[in-house]
């Protein structure tokens, strides 16, 4: 029994207002509490009210996984109409749990049980009835369904009750009691139901270690990184899906004596961030596409005036207002190239929740070390998805420090804020430093910071601003790119960035099971680009597939442009994470049909 490796994905689908997201939240927290590893991602509409579709997917595992599963094992339908299109994502011999006694008669063809395919295992559950019996109200259908799942698969009941209590901690005691009663009623029913699927939950792996692990979203990991790096000021303006960064920082920063301000717009947010950076603070802002578009001019000033700042950008569907609650990777271009002029900046794109934390913390170090704005580029999928992460006890991030102004400088020589040095990084003084008086400017300037537009000066300064960033590729404590899968020469290489890496790696693993020699590479630093290791990887691959959540292939363009190599594009603009099976098919196609069939057979 102990050898059972757990890998189960449960999807709860309902209408906004059914408590779908809440149930998903309790499920993942309970399972994380019980010591399992969890990856979870919710989809919900952009409207607060109404009857939009909500899906909460939770993948519960004992081993390391990298993305959501392509197929769901258990689908819980709180709303038949919304759940019907998702029946097809249930695997063969997977379970579908639905309300067998809904509140109103369901129109013909609109009951989920009528859409099951042969091999799907239905569990009709009178959710409303059980809710009414146990709580004398029909509001707890969702918790009854959750209880049923827990009971059916003999999941640890105490962990769920703790998670429910925690969830309703701020509400009246009665609320917790009602929900626990509904959960227990569902659990009893699940326990006594005959189970005809073969789904098994093995015991969680290594319990001792799990006590240190934390389950959190990418955005909250960013917050943790900011706090551990000693963030001093934050300026922001609400925008989905970045808002939860500011909301959490607003609670946490004052506890550490730091200051947060909600500004009048994104332009003010980045302006104040640059202002605080100029004054020597560790400063950041967070935004999404439309807000980031407004920030690019000020980011250019940060590059020109060599001011450290950190900008968190969580991508969503675009252009314009686009799809605020759907994920996309279409802001690579603006992150790397956005704004006017030769404004080279550092762009980091973490690939998982742990990476969000690491990139956030290191971004502050890098901004100071190279005196430049650093963009940390995530997307809605990564911002909102939950993962269990093990953090080190002591944060690895370096305290505030930069190349200081020379102390032994002759007093009669004016300070050269933009001194041309071998590494391009100039000794820095901030307001308040005696002897460091200077003016930073958006005008092209000489070493003293005085306006100067002579040809030689512009060339030297442009080279300085570009050249100083090359050292960032070797910045300690961060992996700028990494290869996974088969070593040496391979048939197919999957080159990825950002949240897509998880799906890409899962597809690579499946392709290798098919017998395809396959490797994946994640590129975390998009600017400056780690050209050499990418080139080495490209040389090792017969075909390179670049999966991305955008239309034209912005990363593929970056790679082809910088390295002059053709790549095979795999683009999706569905507003959803990449489908692992579709990507696997693309890998098979790239490997050549005969090759994978022969080796698989």
């Amino acid at each position, binding site marked *: 029994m102990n050898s059972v490796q757990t890998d189960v994905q449960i999807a709860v689908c309902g209408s906004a207002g059914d408590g779908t997201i809440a149930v998903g939240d309790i499920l993942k927290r309970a399972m994380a509490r019980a010591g399992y590893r969890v990856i979870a991602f919710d989809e919900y509409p952009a409207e607060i009210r109404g009857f939009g579709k909500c899906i909460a997917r939770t993948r519960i595992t004992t081993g390391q996984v990298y993305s959501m599963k392509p197929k769901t094992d258990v689908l819980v339908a709180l709303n038949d109409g919304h759940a019907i299109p998702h029946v097809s994502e249930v695997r063969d011999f997977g379970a579908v749990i639905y309300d067998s006694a809904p509140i109103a008669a369901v129109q013909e063809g609109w009951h989920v049980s009528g859409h099951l395919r042969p091999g799907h295992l239905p569990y009709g559950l009178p959710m409303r009835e059980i809710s009414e019996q146990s709580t004398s109200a029909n509001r707890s259908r969702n918790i009854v369904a959750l209880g049923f799942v827990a009971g059916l698969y003999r999941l640890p009941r105490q962990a769920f009750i703790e998670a429910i209590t925690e969830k309703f901690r701020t509400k009246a005691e009665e609320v917790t009691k009602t929900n626990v009663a509904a959960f227990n009623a569902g659990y009893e029913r699940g326990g006594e139901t005959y189970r005809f699927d073969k789904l098994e939950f093995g015991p969680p792996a290594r319990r001792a270690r799990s006590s240190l692990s934390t389950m959190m979203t990418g955005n909250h990991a960013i917050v943790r990184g900011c706090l551990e790096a000693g963030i001093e000021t934050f300026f922001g303006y609400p925008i989905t899906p970045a808002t939860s960064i500011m909301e959490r920082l607003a609670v946490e920063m004052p506890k550490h004596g730091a200051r947060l301000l909600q500004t009048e717009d994104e332009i*003010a947010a980045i302006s104040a961030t640059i202002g605080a950076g*100029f004054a020597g603070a560790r400063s950041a802002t967070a935004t999404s596409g439309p807000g980031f578009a407004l920030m690019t001019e000020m980011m250019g000033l940060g590059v020109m005036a060599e001011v450290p700042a950190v900008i968190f950008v969580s991508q969503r569907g675009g252009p314009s207002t686009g799809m605020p609650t759907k994920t996309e990777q279409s802001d690579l271009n603006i992150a790397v190239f956005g704004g006017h002029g030769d404004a080279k900046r550092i762009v980091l794109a973490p690939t998982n929740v742990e990476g969000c934390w690491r990139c956030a913390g290191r971004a502050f170090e890098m901004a100071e070390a190279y005196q430049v704005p650093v963009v940390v580029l995530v997307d809605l999928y990564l911002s909102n998805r939950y993962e269990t992460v093990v953090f080190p006890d002591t944060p690895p991030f370096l305290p505030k420090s930069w190349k200081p102004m020379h102390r032994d400088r002759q007093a009669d020589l004016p300070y050269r804020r933009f001194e041309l040095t071998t590494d391009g990084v100039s000794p820095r003084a901030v307001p308040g430093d005696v002897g460091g008086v200077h003016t930073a400017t958006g005008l092209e300037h000489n070493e003293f910071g005085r*306006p100067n537009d002579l040809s030689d000066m512009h060339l030297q300064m442009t080279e300085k601003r570009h050249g100083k960033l090359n050292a960032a590729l070797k910045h300690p404590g961060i992996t700028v790119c990494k290869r996974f899968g088969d070593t040496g020469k391979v048939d197919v290489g999957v080159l990825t960035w950002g949240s897509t890496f998880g799906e890409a790696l899962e597809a690579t693993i499946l392709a290798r099971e098919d017998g395809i020699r396959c490797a994946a590479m994640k590129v975390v630093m998009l600017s400056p680009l780690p050209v050499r290791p990418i080139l080495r990887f490209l040389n090792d691959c017969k075909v390179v597939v670049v999966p991305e959540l955008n239309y034209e292939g912005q990363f593929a363009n970056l790679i082809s442009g910088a390295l002059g190599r053709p790549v095979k594009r795999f683009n999706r603009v569905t507003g959803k994470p990449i489908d692992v099976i579709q990507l696997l098919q693309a890998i098979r196609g790239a490997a050549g049909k005969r090759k994978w069939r022969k080796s698989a057979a």
Partner: protein
Amino acid sequence: MSIEHPVYLEDKLEQIRTSGRLHYRSKSLPTWCPGCGYYSMTEGVTWALNEIGTANEDVVVVSGIGCASRFPFFMETYGFHTLHGRTLPVATGIKLANENLTVIVVGGDGDGFAIGGGHIPHVARRNVDITYLLFDNGIYGLTKGQVSPTSALGFKTPTSPFQNQDEPLNPLAMLLAYGSSWVGQAYAGRPDHLAEMIRGAIKHRGFSYLHILSPCVTFDKTDRTYRRLDLEVRDLPDNHDSRDRLAAMSEASTTDRPALGVFYNEQRRTLGDALDAVVEKAGGVPRRLAVRQ
């Protein structure tokens, strides 16, 4: 203002050298046109800083784009020459990062009220402890004389060849309505008074807005000239109560006879104070405490 006795250059230079003001001036020569009101402002700022005795390294001058944008280069203090219209939020960031700094923002009517107009209400209502010296000449000087938000109706410029059709703004009334805690007006043609006003504005704890009237001697030969402003400006009445916002509003509305002096002055908590209170509420210890003479 007529000159009653001759002033010799040597005497004047001697006077300036011994005044201590040059301590705050960099070695860069100003690039403004002869006769420009910015010279009066530079004089005023250096005099006021010298009077207050602020250390050079504790001053940050923030400018945007326009004729004022070069001002930081002429000062021997920290300076940040930023983007068009974004001086106030940049200054907010600087002040919040280090409350020990004296932050002075300089800008013109275009930078402040056209492209940057959206930031003024918020910096005023939050009472960020910075000084905003707005230099109003009713014209875009650096781009060679286009119409601005404070240009008079009917003013003819290259971009309003058939005369300006837009009602000019009333900046003082605007700032009073936005909740600015210190509002004053000065005139570049009265440099001594201007200097006194700058000192008052810098010393004020909270957001201080000083509106400085000045001609553009190069691109406006007809409308807002020294000759005309000399005749129009008046002092605020002796009995004006600068704690009375309504009285200030009433004085601000007589735009044909602009009054000089402190329109409004109130002491209330600054944004820094408020954020320190938030930190205390959350159980933290403020990292930086506002210290100001």
